[in-house]
């Protein structure tokens, strides 16, 4: 034993040593290797990796005569050699190395080049027109920012080049034949889709577009490019082609479009330690020492610089870069326009809002200081749209609803053009490209203004930083780019009246935002934005939707589920009837009341619209009991004093007289509850008293609260009562009696979330010892108020429904199977339709249809309806089982029977069915058990089965655990019993088993 224990420990030690050793040697290594940061550090016999078959080694040796050159097959192999420590530096063309470094960590390019070089496109010597076009395109691309985009696209800091954009070429003017050697990523290469792409290809596409030509790219050997051009096979070549004097004698070069050269890649030095520790941010001022991202030249820039001198302010050219930087953890936080925040949060799940309304600035349209006329026109325009509601509509569409649609705007006969400077990647709601169209609030505003001014609208997309320069030089007429009105800017340009006032938010990566503790609730108004639980189909539902539109509504069927959700924090608050809520407080020390009365509604008894007589009778009765003081006594008993202690007065039951069916849902005291094996509560007493007065034979039917009104409408019940509030909406469907009580709504929340209990010990619930808790639960859920009788009755009903449904279903299934297998087309078609219909309908829906629609006007016990519905459903499944098990019997068996003189029927009875039964039973057993479990939904049509019984108990004890577990155990027991019974039958029909049984007889 001892030995066994020691060995693993020693093993562990040796592992620790190994680890330490590895760590030490690592430290040693990093100390020894000083990071190379400039070219001069490479002199003194360093090893250079160069690709074979190039002249690069010559350049290296010219610069470093003592260099050792190692040759590799490709530039990538060279770079990997550096990474793996086999060489100190790797030399090759700059763009290729940039590409490699972007895709491989731990490498860096030295800023200084060994030798400079310029790339150019080339055309035939005589083709000066094309050369001029190329140079023109280059200038244009550089001017409008496309060139920068290309650089970003093809030379990303990290990762592979982005895919080539799709540039449509209409090409009505012939074809531009472009020759390239697609071997140099990222200048010209073959991508994953086997398309030739790259910087040069994109450029050539722009040239073709300029010429209004189609582009025909020919991929050839590098060495074949020049001859092909000279021979006139292609019009233009380019593939990272260096401009050399020698070549310039034979071909005509464009201006250089890319400054290249032979660059050096070395191992990156130890990456600089992260600027700041991962201190999380909670409030706005936590950003004072963080990396803050801002748009260059934006108001945030100045604001942040002034307010947080210790912070590192990082300027970016556009919003998308800012967001990428935030996502990549290059910056900690960034200022963002509040109106656009929801859109950003939606598309960037990792980003959260740290704070909003950090500051607020007016947004205005910018004008050239010399252009007062236009500005005044704009101000007039703004006044007009504010007055006629267009502005409100715009705000509602863009800012509130986030609808990404532009209305169609345009002046009828435009005179002149309005050039509006816009930023097309601002994002929702101001300005963005959506489905290839420029849309947004700013865009709509400026285009509306253009229409107002009777001018044609021409949006000019610019970088934010160049807006002011553009307007100052009259390149554009107006700026509508969510530009904040600031003093600095006002010095340079004029602003129109502010057209929007925008708040500014701070957004940051969620993992950098420290969750503020859930805010405590003090008043009912704090419910806004919270998760609120209500009963399905109650007035609370509509009330919360109306009063707290920002709240999330959770709908529950039972008070037990709802209170459990409050306890476990699934919801923040739950709405209960105030009396129920008080009872609930008593049993649940962790709960507190946020408000006792947020809604006050009269309660009434519901009657069918077609039965005004009964309603009038009831109203008479109400007046009577109000007059004689009975009502006051009831109110005192159920509402004023503790309803739990209340004792129902005894009522004689009438076996004769008119039948009166009352629908209730057993929500809880004080209205309707189930205590001591009988209905109890204010409503029950009231209805019983009413029945006694008028000589009715009274029956109660229990169903889910949402089903009450439909049951009444379907004529299943004569009246419904269970603390039902009289609402306008319900009045449309049913008639109400006069109000018999007022229904006040209380808000229940966990004490720990209540301001008034903040910090108090009571908020923390004391845990009972486990066994004590089980014993208590057992007592309160089973013994108290004779609740076990509910369970037993429910169990009986579950069993009865299951067994009769199975019987009916089996018989019906046999019939359906017979029809299905019949040669008669009509019969088999009907059976097939029946099967697919019933199998395709959820049994709950079927159950409700049969109860509320098919038998709407028939007075039939819901239990029988349940047997019927489950039987129908079971039949569909069983008939198919019958069919497959019959078909699984060998055809020869039937033939033998028929040939032996049996009729078809006798063959089936004596020969086929005993064999089919053996195939059938195992599957039948499974289906039967699922039928038993399926019956748990009968509560929907007012049957108190096992599940409903446990629901009723839960509604009284608010204990979710015990009744549910008990129900589960009981279902398990039933299933086990039925399995056992069917298995016994299965064994008896097995012929082998009969033989075993017979053997002892034979031996005797």
């Amino acid at each position, binding site marked *: 034993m001892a030995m066994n224990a020691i060995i693993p420990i020693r093993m562990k030690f040796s592992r620790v040593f190994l680890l330490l050793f590895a760590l030490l040697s690592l430290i040693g290594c990093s100390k020894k290797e000083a990071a190379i940061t400039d070219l001069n550090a490479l002199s003194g016999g360093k090893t250079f990796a160069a690709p074979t078959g190039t002249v690069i080694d010559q350049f290296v040796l010219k610069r470093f005569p003592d260099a050792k050159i190692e040759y590799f097959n490709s530039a990538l192999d060279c770079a990997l050699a550096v990474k793996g420590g086999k060489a100190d530096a790797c030399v090759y063309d700059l763009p290729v190395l940039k590409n490699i470094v972007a895709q491989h960590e731990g490498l860096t390019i030295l800023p200084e080049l060994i030798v400079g070089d310029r790339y150019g496109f080339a055309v035939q010597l005589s083709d000066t027109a094309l050369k001029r076009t190329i140079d023109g395109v280059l200038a244009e691309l550089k001017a409008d920012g496309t060139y920068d985009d290309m650089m970003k696209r093809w030379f990303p800091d990290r990762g592979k080049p982005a895919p080539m954009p799709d540039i449509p070429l209409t090409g009505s003017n012939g074809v531009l034949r472009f020759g390239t050697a697609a071997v140099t990523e990222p200048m010209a290469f073959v991508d994953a889709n086997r398309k030739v792409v790259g910087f040069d290809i994109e450029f050539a596409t722009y040239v073709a577009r300029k010429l209004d030509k189609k582009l025909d790219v020919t991929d050839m050997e590098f060495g074949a490019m020049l001859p092909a051009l000279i021979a006139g096979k292609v019009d233009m070549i380019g593939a990272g082609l260096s401009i050399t004097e020698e070549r310039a004698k034979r071909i005509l070069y464009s201006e250089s479009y890319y400054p290249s050269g032979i660059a050096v890649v070395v191992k990156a030095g130890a990456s600089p330690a992260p600027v700041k520790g991962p201190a999380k941010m909670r409030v706005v001022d936590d950003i004072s020492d963080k990396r803050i991202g801002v748009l260059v030249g934006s108001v945030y820039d100045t604001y942040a610089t002034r307010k947080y001198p210790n912070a590192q302010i990082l300027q970016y050219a556009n919003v998308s870069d800012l967001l990428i930087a935030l996502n990549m953890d290059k910056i900690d936080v960034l200022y963002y326009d509040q109106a656009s925040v929801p859109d950003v949060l939606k598309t960037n799940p990792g980003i959260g809002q740290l704070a909003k309304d950090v500051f607020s600035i007016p947004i205005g349209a910018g004008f050239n200081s010399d252009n007062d006329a236009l500005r005044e026109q704009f101000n007039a325009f703004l006044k007009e749209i504010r007055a006629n509601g267009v502005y409100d509509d715009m705000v509602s569409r863009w800012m509130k609803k986030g609808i990404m649609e532009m209305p169609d705007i345009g002046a009828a006969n435009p005179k002149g053009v309005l050039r509006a400077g816009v930023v097309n990647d601002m994002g929702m709601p101001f300005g963005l490209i959506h489905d290839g169209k420029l849309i947004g609030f700013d865009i709509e505003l400026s285009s509306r203004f253009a229409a107002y001014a009777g001018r044609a609208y021409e949006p000019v997309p610019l970088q934010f930083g160049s807006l002011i320069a553009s307007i100052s030089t009259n390149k554009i007429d107006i700026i509508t780019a969510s530009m904040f009105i600031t003093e600095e800017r006002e010095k340079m340009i004029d602003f129109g009246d502010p057209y929007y006032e925008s708040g500014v938010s701070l957004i940051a990566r969620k993992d950098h935002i420290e969750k503020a503790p859930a805010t405590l609730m003090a008043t009912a108004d704090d419910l806004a934005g919270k998760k609120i639980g209500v009963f399905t189909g109650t007035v609370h539902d509509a009330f919360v939707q109306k009063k707290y539109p920002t709240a999330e509504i959770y709908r529950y069927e039972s008070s037990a589920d709802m209170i459990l959700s409050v306890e476990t924090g699934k919801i923040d608050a739950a709405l209960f009837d105030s009396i129920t809520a008080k009872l609930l407080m008593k049993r649940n020390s962790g709960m507190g009341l946020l408000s006792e009365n947020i809604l006050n509604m009269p309660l009434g008894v519901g009657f069918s619209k077609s039965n005004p007589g009964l309603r009038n009778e009831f109203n008479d009765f109400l007046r009577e009991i109000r007059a004689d003081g009975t009502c006051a006594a009831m109110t005192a008993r159920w509402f004023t004093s503790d309803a739990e202690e209340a004792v129902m007065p005894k009522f004689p039951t009438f076996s004769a007289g008119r039948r009166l069916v009352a629908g209730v849902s057993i929500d809880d005291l004080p209205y309707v509850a189930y205590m001591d094996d009988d209905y109890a509560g204010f409503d029950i007493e009231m209805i019983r008293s009413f029945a006694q007065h008028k000589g009715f034979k009274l029956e109660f039917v229990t169903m889910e609260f949402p089903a009450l009104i439909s049951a009444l409408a379907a004529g299943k019940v004569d009246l419904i009562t269970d603390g039902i509030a009289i609402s306008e909406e319900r009045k449309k469907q049913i008639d109400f009696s006069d109000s018999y009580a007022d229904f006040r709504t209380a808000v229940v929340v966990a004490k720990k979330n209540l301001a008034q209990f903040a910090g108090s010990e009571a908020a923390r619930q004391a845990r009972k010892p486990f066994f004590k808790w089980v014993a208590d639960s057992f007592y309160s859920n089973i013994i108290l108020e004779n609740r076990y009788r509910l369970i037993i009755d429910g169990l009986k009903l579950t069993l009865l429904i299951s067994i009769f449904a199975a019987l009916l279903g089996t018989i019906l299934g046999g019939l359906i199977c017979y029809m299905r297998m019949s040669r008669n087309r009509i019969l088999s078609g009907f059976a097939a339709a029946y099967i697919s219909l019933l199998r395709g309908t959820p049994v709950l829906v079927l159950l409700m249809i049969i109860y509320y629609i098919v038998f709407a006007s028939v007075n039939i016990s819901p239990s029988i309806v349940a047997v019927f519905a489950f039987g129908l459903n079971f039949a569909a499944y069983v008939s198919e089982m019958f069919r497959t098990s019959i078909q699984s019997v060998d055809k020869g068996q039937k033939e033998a029977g028929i040939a032996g003189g049996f009729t078809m029927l006798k063959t089936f009875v004596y020969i086929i069915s005993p064999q089919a039964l053996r195939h059938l039973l195992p599957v039948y057993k499974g289906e039967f058990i699922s039928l038993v479990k399926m019956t748990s939904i009968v509560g929907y049509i007012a049957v108190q089965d096992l599940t409903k019984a446990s629901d009723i108990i839960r509604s009284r004890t608010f204990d979710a655990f015990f009744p549910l577990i008990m129900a589960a155990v009981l279902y398990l027991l039933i299933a086990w019993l039925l399995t056992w019974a069917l298995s016994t039958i299965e064994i008896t029909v097995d*012929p082998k088993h009969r033989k075993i049984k017979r053997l002892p007889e034979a031996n005797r």
Partner: protein
Amino acid sequence: MIHVRNLSKHFGDLVVLKDVSVDISKGEVISVIGPSGTGKSTFLRCLNLLETPTGGSIEIDGIPLLAKGTHVPKVRQKMGMVFQSFNLYHHLTAIENLTIGPIRLLGRNKADAQKKGMELLKLVGLGKKADSFPDELSGGQQQRVAIARCMAMDPEILLFDEPTSALDPTMVSEVLAVIRRLVREGMTMVIVTHEMEFARNISRRVFYMDEGIIYEEGTPVQVFDNPQKEKTRAFIHRIRSLEQRITGTDYDLYALQAEMEAFCDKHMLPKKVTGHVVHMAEELLLLQRDFTNIRLSLSYSEKDGSLAIGCESAGAPRNPLEEGSEEDEIAIRLIKARCSATEYRYEDGKNVLMLRMKGE
């Protein structure tokens, strides 16, 4: 006893039986032989209406089976049927298989039925297997129980649908012995079978079925020893043949020889014989002059093991074995040495040469 008139049966467009008319008298034992797929089983299954005929009439013991109002199950009780795949009732023991019919259909009491059943089981030699389930019995035993099951109904006619086809060769004889015993007891029987010796020994008449009709019928001696028609003969002698065609001088000799070898392998001829066949064919082709249309046939009788090579060729009359040039001399001698008989005739513009190979 059984009168069949113009019986026909179609499965869709496929004609299986056409206008079959047959009379079978009491106590007769009829064997139905013929190649597979020629309607033997269908004919048998029509007799008890397991297949409903498309046309014609069937009369059993004076009762018209296809007439309306005939209670067919009652008639079937008098006609037992034994299946190729036995079809014993799987859920019943051997004795129960025998008693279920008498008890449920003939209204016998259980004790009587069991007594009779046990007697029958003993008769087929399976007295000890009474309580066994079908899947505990061998094929031969199952088939014997199946025969006993038919007998338990006291039938007047027994129909056998290839009763030994699904059996191991070792079990065939036990079943045939039981059938022979029933023959001796004078039962009317129709037997579809591939056991030729058995059919010859027990039956009074033999039907050779082919092309959906009774192609030839007669006593076993007539049918087996002196069949009148070509197809019957081929069937009786169990002649297998291979035909090859050559339509030009550039034929593929090797493919041809390979096919011949495959044919010989299939019929398990000795390697030496195969060699001779291939060699002979080659020599024979060497003697040919006109290759525009040559039909080469190889036939082998499974019954007596004789082999023959036939060669039909177009062109002017010319017996290659007689009118060969000098170079052909060796080939002709080789061929003659290997053959027991050669036959030449000129027919319909074709030279027909038949070579019978010597036996080993």
